[in-house]
Structures are given as structure tokens and as C-alpha cells.
């Protein structure tokens, strides 16, 4: 079971490294979005609080342009049956979830580095709060995005539908992580954000469990 999940993860990773289907586009997407923010705020003093919100806007839209690929490409190429015949639905789900975790961590790392280098007023005071928010936020983001990717892979207008379906589901998560990033700028201590952590952890747990229970219905018709 675990080795099968790992095998699916490795397959997706290898495929991504070989085709660079998502990676290159994502890289450019981040560069473009951050430049956009820089242009539109040139000459203005932008507060750290506002920049915290914008950081998650960048993360959300980058995720929306990359995380659906793992399911959509299987559906578009007709390789779904290959997987359906090879293993249980839950194995596929967790393999893809793992891949999206990896993708979002890579993405977040890149975004944050780019952000810290370009946004002068974005000064993180509590690094622990910031980092934990980023990691747990990434996990939650990937959890919800993965099941929604599985849904939209079967619909007609995949690209535009993805953010539309994801946003309301992700809103509680985004509100919490934005707030956490703001707190980290303001220099809040780690213990002040325990409540946030609880929300983030239980959000991911609830979404993953629900996805696991529902994935069978999406995967086979």
C-alpha cells in the first residue's frame, strides 16, 4: 500500500522532471505575478500587512495554475485506465496528494525567496510563526486543491473552473494563513498562534479524510 503510493508519487515526479510541463510555466507565473505587484506599487510605501495578503494571493493563483496538472494530464491523455487497472483508488489519491505536497513546498519556497528579495517592507519578525504558517498553509492548500483537481479533471472547462471551485473551499484556510503571516510580521510569539495552528491542522485533516472517503466516487464511474 505505502510502496504503491510512493510509486505513484515517483512516477509523477519523474514525469514532471522529464516534461517540465508544470514547472517552467509555474516559474514564469510567479515571476510575472511578483513583477506585476512591483510595477503596480512602484513608488508607494506598501505596508507589511498588505504584503502578507498579497503573498497569499500569489501563492493561491500559482497553486491554481499548477496543482490540477496531476489529474488533468492523466484524464487528457487517457492514462486514467492504466492507473485504474493497476491499483486501488485511495492509493492513487494519496500518491497524487503527496505529489501536490511536494509541488506546493517547492513553489512556496521559491515564492517566498523571490518575495523576500523584492519586497522591501516585507520584514518577517517571528520566523517560526511565518514558517509554520507557510508549511501548514501549504499542506491545507494542497489537500483541498487535490480533490478539486480530481473533480475538474472530469469537467469541460477545466482551467477557469479550478479557482472558482477552490476559492470558497480554501477561504477559511487562506484567512487563517494570511492572518498568521501578518502576525509574523508584527512579531507575535509562537504561543499566540496556537489557535491558528489548531485550525490549520484540523482543516487539513478534515479535508483529507473527506477526500479519501469520496475519491472512489470520482475515480470510477
Amino acid at each position, binding site marked *: 500500500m505505502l510502496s504503491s503510493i510512493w510509486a505513484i508519487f*515517483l512516477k509523477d515526479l519523474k514525469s514532471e522532471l522529464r516534461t517540465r510541463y508544470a514547472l517552467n510555466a509555474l516559474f514564469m507565473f510567479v515571476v510575472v505575478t511578483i513583477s506585476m505587484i512591483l510595477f503596480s506599487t512602484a513608488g508607494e510605501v506598501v505596508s507589511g500587512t498588505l504584503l502578507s495578503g498579497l503573498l497569499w494571493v500569489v501563492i493561491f493563483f500559482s497553486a491554481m495554475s499548477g496543482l490540477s496538472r496531476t489529474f488533468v494530464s492523466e484524464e487528457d491523455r487517457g492514462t486514467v485506465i492504466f492507473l485504474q487497472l493497476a*491499483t486501488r483508488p485511495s492509493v492513487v489519491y494519496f500518491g497524487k496528494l503527496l505529489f501536490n505536497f511536494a509541488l506546493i513546498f517547492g513553489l512556496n519556497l521559491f515564492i517566498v525567496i523571490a518575495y523576500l528579495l523584492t519586497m522591501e517592507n516585507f520584514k518577517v519578525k517571528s520566523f517560526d510563526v511565518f514558517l509554520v504558517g507557510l508549511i501548514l498553509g501549504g499542506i491545507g492548500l494542497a489537500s483541498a486543491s487535490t480533490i478539486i483537481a480530481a473533480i475538474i479533471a472530469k469537467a469541460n472547462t477545466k482551467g477557469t473552473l479550478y479557482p472558482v471551485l477552490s476559492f470558497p473551499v480554501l477561504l477559511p484556510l487562506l484567512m487563517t494563513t494570511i492572518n498568521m503571516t501578518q502576525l509574523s510580521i508584527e512579531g507575535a510569539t509562537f504561543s499566540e498562534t496556537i489557535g491558528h495552528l489548531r485550525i490549520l491542522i484540523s482543516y487539513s485533516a478534515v479535508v483529507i479524510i473527506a477526500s479519501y472517503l469520496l475519491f472512489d466516487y470520482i475515480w470510477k464511474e
Partner: protein
Amino acid sequence: MDFKITLKNVRKNFSRLLVFDSVNFELTIGSSLAIAGKNGSGKSTLVKIIAGLLSPSAGEVIYQIDGKKIDKLDWFKYIGFVAPYLQLYDEFTGYENLEILARIRGLKNYKNKIEEVLKRVNLYARRDDLVRGYSSGMKQRLKYACALLHEPIVLILDEPTSNLDAEGVEMVWKIAQEQKKKGILIVATNEAEELQMCEEVINLDELKLKSREQIVK
């Protein structure tokens, strides 16, 4: 070991389109079934239902080992499937495709098995080429390699010889003969000659006529 597949009153419709109704049969080890019918008669739909890729609209498909039902989630362990709509990963080589499959399936000592099966479908020499560069006949051969890798009890072939050359067709016949000795063979085809691969035949066109007569009566 006693293995049995049973279809009871299986019906399938896509919204209003009724594809077939009350399909009934039972297959045990050593039995083989050919599914005949015109284009669009529902052959592929039926094999997908047998393989658990589609759910029937009514009725049920049952897999049993020694009288014990197998959970639908575990059917994949017993099935080998070849079909035109089954696609392989074309950014990987033939060998990599098989390796991925073996790992996902959790097979042990898969290296030997992969080589064996590659030789069997005569792709060993081209094993390290990307599938993207394969001809359609070679892809079809690779699908056979994938289907046979875990030595399935049930082998399901939809349009078994599509895109194959004379030698490939011969290979398919050999595979079919061997499968009938050890397990169950199901072939969906519209070529009269290929119906000979199997002992029994179910014709979806006739089935449709029959069920229509019943309604008229």
C-alpha cells in the same frame, strides 16, 4: 483454487441510451467468452463493466474465489486488460512503463518478470526507447506486456489484434491459448475469425433483438 465471475442481469444505459439489458453469464477457470456485435453495440462498455472500470446501471458483477466474494476494490489484482482506449505514458520508455506498473502493483522480483514479458511480446530490443517513438503496433504489444506482467487470472482483450502485423496476430493467438489453460479469457471483437479464440460467444446485437421481442410480447 476455484475462481468465478458471474454477471447477473447486467444492464447499462448512458442517460437515455440503453446499451444492453439483462446480460447473464458465468465464467470459471478454463472458460473463455467472446463478445460479438456491431460497432457501437456495447462490447467495450461490457468489458469495462466486467473489469470494474464502469458501474452497471442495474444488476451485478461478482468475482469469487473459492466461493468467497472479492471486494470490487481488489479486482485489479486478478485482471489483465488490453484495449485501444488504454493509453501508456509516452514520456517514459517501454521498460519504465512496465517498471512503474510493477511498483504500483507491488510485484516482487519484477526485473526478471519484465524482461520475460518484454521478450514474449518481442519488444526487448526496443525496451529503452520512449513510448512516444513507438509505432501503434509496438504500443499494442507493450499493452500486452502490461496486461501479462502480473500473470492475471482474467485476461480481457478488447479488439485484440488492432494495429498488429501478422506475427503480432500470431502472438495474440498464442497468448489466448495459454490463458485458456490457466485462467479466464474474454475477447471483445467484431472480427468473425477472432471469435474462434473462445469457446462461448455472446452476441450483443442478438441480445438486443431478444430483449426487444420480450418488450413487444
